[in-house]
């Protein structure tokens, strides 16, 4: 039986772990991976004490720091179910391990939003990417599409201008939502075309060398989109497609015990309580307005201290 189980290994979860361990709570931290969204950040300049640090470096420092404390950690595990058991909670992960705990801190953050169209999952890593910092250099002299005309999409396109020979930015709405300064910069490269009022419907691929090529080695070849001005379906020949339509929370495992807002974030009060006593949510998974590393960390701290107070009163 644990005093608290923290779900998530980003800034919120790690900070909650540090605070819970310092309060001598019997703590377990379960995470699929370390760092969460910060691992994709090439340069962080707003974490006090670090003028400039890469996401992976900051993450490594946080994890090293966490591991100096006494707490149990389970990596490479995703929580799939959370239920009440009397006054306590039962947690089950994807490796079928079960744990009982008096309190829970959900700090699972956000993951990239999917288009949910045919070909997207199939061609992941084979032309479909969610991280231009990681994958842009693989598209030297190639033609690529960026789905999403907001700032995330624009930043993705900026990364790609260093390598790709042609970039199409496809936006669902009638106009691009990203900053016009960045748009000007993109236009000046002469490589970028902007498509608005379009719906991306399908990603298609083929085996290199045609149907006779080696099986299981298909790569992206084109995408199908609907031009909603005319209602026509069109095909765009591209070798890469970068999806940048925002992030989404994923906390289906807590259904019934928490209240979600309209975009699926968990509603919390100012001490990070959810609607179930003993169950807290910290960081980007909660309905916080400003999503920043320092804010996620501070919410992790609040959650752990609130969990401590809750246990003391029991």
């Amino acid at each position, binding site marked *: 039986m644990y005093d608290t189980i923290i779900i998530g290994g980003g800034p919120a979860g790690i900070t909650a772990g540090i605070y819970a361990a310092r309060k001598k709570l019997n703590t377990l931290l379960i995470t699929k991976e370390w760092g969460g969204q910060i691992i994709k950040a090439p340069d962080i300049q707003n974490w006090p004490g670090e003028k400039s640090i890469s996401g992976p470096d900051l993450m*490594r420092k946080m994890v090293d720091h966490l591991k100096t404390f006494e707490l149990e950690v389970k990596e490479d595990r995703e929580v799939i179910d959370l239920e009440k058991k009397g006054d306590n909670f039962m947690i089950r992960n994807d490796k079928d391990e079960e744990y009982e705990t008096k309190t829970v801190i959900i700090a699972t953050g956000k993951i990239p939003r999917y288009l949910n169209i045919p070909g997207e999952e199939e061609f992941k890593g084979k032309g479909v990417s969610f991280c231009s910092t*990681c994958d842009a250099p*693989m598209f030297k002299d190639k033609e690529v599409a960026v789905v999403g005309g907001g700032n995330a999409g624009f930043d993705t396109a900026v990364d790609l201008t260093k390598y790709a020979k042609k970039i199409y930015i496809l936006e669902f709405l009638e106009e691009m939502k990203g900053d016009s300064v960045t748009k000007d910069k993109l236009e000046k490269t002469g490589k970028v075309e902007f498509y608005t009022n379009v719906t991306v419907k399908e990603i298609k691929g083929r085996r290199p060398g045609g149907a006779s090529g080696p099986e299981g080695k298909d790569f992206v070849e084109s995408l199908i989109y609907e031009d909603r001005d005319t209602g026509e379906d069109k095909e765009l020949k591209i070798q890469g497609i970068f999806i940048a339509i925002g992030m989404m929370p994923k906390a289906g495992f807590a259904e019934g015990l928490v209240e979600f807002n309209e975009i699926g974030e968990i509603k919390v009060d100012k001490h990070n309580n959810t609607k179930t006593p003993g169950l807290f949510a910290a960081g980007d998974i909660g309905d916080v307005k400003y999503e920043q590393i320092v804010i996620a960390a501070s919410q992790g701290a609040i959650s752990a201290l609130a969990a401590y107070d809750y246990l003391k009163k029991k």
Partner: protein
Amino acid sequence: MVVKVFSTASCPFCVALKNYLKEHSIEFEDIDVAENETAQKEMIEKSGQMGVPVVEIDGEIIIGFDHEKIKKLLNIKD
């Protein structure tokens, strides 16, 4: 033991992976597939995909920074 890391300079998981290998004093060949197109083709051919990093340990291919597999193949205990 021959360890090759196919990566790019900007990819965060590549940096994390290479730091991990260095921490465990594992020698490896660092191949930048953004600069070296032949190596890029080799990596895509061997791994059947284009995401970095890809690690080759004595001919065995691992896609991504897969802690468990890398630990096992390199006999790292921690």
